[in-house]
């Protein structure tokens, strides 16, 4: 039997290789991923709730509430963490209304980035929102739209969708920060802070009174559990 010319073999290999590469590009979402993987924008109700919750409360970077509040509640969280989302959606509104809006506490929100690449991108985006004093609204909307852990959902389209629901927040700055999270000082600061106080899980809560930190350990996840733990820590301070 006559041998096939080598050049034909190369052509066949090249066609097969091109098919594999094409399939790989399709799997990865393609080069136009920014546009084609856009997450559907949910209703505006969630964003309105977030805006209403934080309306009228002073916000400065990662801090929320009266700068002269006698104590500060520090939350160490990860935007990818489902328990953090549960706290944000179910208990945090009561903490904000009962303690922060009333001036009993200031709030400090520090986002770690240790659950994976989506965490790092989310922390970068959150840092950009903090720069514009919109961290709390951004986090609230993010949590309400949180995707499955480490599923690469926190892409540019997702960040743009979340940021665009926060009035006054520059969505493109948020997207740029998500793409370059390690250039955001707040991302490294949060990691260093958490390591410095031996915080190993999220959400983790501490009460700071006159520079002294007390760990807050609620017995459950209901708003009343948080209120009880905060009251106990305030009484002991």
């Amino acid at each position: 039997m006559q041998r096939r010319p080598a050049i034909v073999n190369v052509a066949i290999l090249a066609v097969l290789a091109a098919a594999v590469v094409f399939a790989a590009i399709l799997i990865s979402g393609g080069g136009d991923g920014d546009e084609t993987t856009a997450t559907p924008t949910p209703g505006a109700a969630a964003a309105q709730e977030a805006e209403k919750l934080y309306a009228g409360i002073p916000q400065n970077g990662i801090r929320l509430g009266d700068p002269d509040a006698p104590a500060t509640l520090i939350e160490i969280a990860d935007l990818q963490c489902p328990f953090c989302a549960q706290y944000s959606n179910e208990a945090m509104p009561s903490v904000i209304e009962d303690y922060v809006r009333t001036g009993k506490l200031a709030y400090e929100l520090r986002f770690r980035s240790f659950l994976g690449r989506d965490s790092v991108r989310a922390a970068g985006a959150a840092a950009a929102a903090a720069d514009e004093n919109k961290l709390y609204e951004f986090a609230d909307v993010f949590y309400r739209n949180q995707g499955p852990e480490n599923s690469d959902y926190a892409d540019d389209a997702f960040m743009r969708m979340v940021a665009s629901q926060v009035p006054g927040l520059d969505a493109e700055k948020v997207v740029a920060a998500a793409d370059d999270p390690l250039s955001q000082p707040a991302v490294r600061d949060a990691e260093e802070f958490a390591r410095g106080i031996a915080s190993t899980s999220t959400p983790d809560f501490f009460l700071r009174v006159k520079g002294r930190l007390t760990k807050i350990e609620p017995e459950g996840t209901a708003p009343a559990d948080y209120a009880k733990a905060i009251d106990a820590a305030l009484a002991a301070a």
Partner: protein
Amino acid sequence: MTLRRATAVLALAGIAIAGYLTWVHYNGLEPVCVGGGGGCEKVQASRWAELGGVPVAVLGLAGYVAILASLALPEEIGAAAAAFLSLVGFGFSAWLTYVEVEKIEAICQWCVASAVVMTALALVSVARVLRPPGAGRGVSVASP
């Protein structure tokens, strides 16, 4: 240097590069980038750093190891396997380079180095397939 030896040297270089990027990925470290600029971190943190949930660095490492392993096969089959794998690697590297420039707007020097190695491997592997039957181990290419 024979084409087989060139394949081995290039595959080992690719294993070193992809192995380093894999190690960096799983240890949560930042790749050392000559001149700084953060290009490597930006590329590593992008959505294109993984394919179907598998880090691209791991895919590259697997590809280079497979190309090296193909040298253990009979010459005709091994050359065809190496050519196929390196052409896939070349195509994917070309696409990733496009993504770096156009989408991520950052260049990772390690990725560029891997793309250069993979391109050289594709050229050498295709040359192995194209050479006349029986040319065997005597065929040489100029050393860089």
